């Protein structure tokens, strides 16, 4: 085989992959190995590939991704806790020609923001919702969320979630799929290369739906919170596969073409 030096290989014509310019150069504020970073990049790559950077308005939540506007190199508005779908509704109705999406954690979307989430989905607002489900309130120290699994330990359920006293976990994505306003509802993950590729396809489909004014597309990403779960990043990804995926199975839940 012909030999090639690293310098010859590292030329622009051989470039296969580099971080998209739609992410700023600010170091992400996330813990090492946190899926938020990968999810951010996937959304920005899709906007980049669709060439809609200057036509897109993102709504940042409260939670670890509260600073998403620092990292996503697009127009953004940060919303009060849980209110992102309401803010997105207003932005989209005032600027119907823009692409509008929310980016929200499970505490934001499925606890304090349940009403805003369900009504925006039921109204069928022509927006995209990106939902990062790590089963916990990451930012505030790993408290139990509506999405916390039965038996799962958190700082407010140190002996594990007891369904009899703490209630059942909420599968809000399945619930949303029942609503006539949603056109596309899917659940994905970002811990392996294959999952990253699938999630990117799902996010692309969601924004293509918005382009065609089809209604609301909802992409859940089951993700890790290694700090909150008190594991290393690799352990947390394994724990997620073993424990989160059986309860939150991956795949499309509703596809109306």
């Amino acid at each position: 085989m012909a030999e090639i030096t690293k310098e010859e290989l590292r030329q622009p014509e051989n470039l296969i992959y580099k971080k998209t310019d739609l992410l700023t150069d600010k170091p992400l504020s996330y813990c090492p190995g946190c899926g938020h970073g990968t999810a951010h990049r996937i959304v920005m790559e899709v906007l980049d590939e669709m060439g809609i950077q200057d036509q897109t308005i993102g709504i940042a939540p409260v939670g670890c991704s509260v600073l998403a506007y620092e990292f996503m190199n697009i127009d953004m508005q940060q919303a009060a806790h849980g209110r992102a779908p309401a803010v997105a509704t207003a932005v989209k109705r005032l600027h119907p020609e823009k692409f509008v999406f929310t980016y929200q954690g499970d505490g934001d979307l499925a606890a304090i923001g349940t009403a805003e989430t369900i009504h925006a989905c039921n109204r069928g607002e022509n927006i995209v919702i990106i939902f990062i489900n790590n089963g916990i309130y990451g930012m505030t120290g790993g408290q139990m969320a509506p999405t916390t699994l039965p038996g799962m330990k958190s700082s407010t359920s140190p002996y594990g979630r007891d369904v009899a006293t703490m209630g059942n976990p909420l599968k809000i994505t399945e619930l949303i799929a029942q609503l006539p306003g949603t056109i596309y509802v899917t659940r994905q993950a970002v811990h392996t290369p294959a999952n990253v590729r699938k999630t990117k396809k799902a996010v692309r489909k969601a924004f293509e739906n918005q382009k065609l004014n089809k209604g609301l597309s909802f992409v859940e990403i089951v993700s890790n919170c290694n700090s909150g779960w008190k594991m290393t990043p690799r352990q947390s990804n394994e724990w997620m596969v073993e424990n989160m995926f059986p309860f939150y199975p991956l795949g499309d839940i509703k596809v109306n073409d």
Partner: protein
Amino acid sequence: MAKVKGDIVIDIEKCKGCEVCVPACPNDVIAMSKNVNGKGYNYAETINDECIGCANCAIVCPDGVITVYRKRME
């Protein structure tokens, strides 16, 4: 048969040492360094020349610090 040669460049100062890229590589190209970067993380580094430029490592890196090159060798 045409063979593919790949290479990656890791921005070690931005690497957070999470190791998520390590199991993503089909050819065990990446391992964690014994040295630390300015933030105190044991950063990722390449340990062999088996890279095929598949970009698996780069697309799972939460911090987007890996750049990938690939060339088809005749």
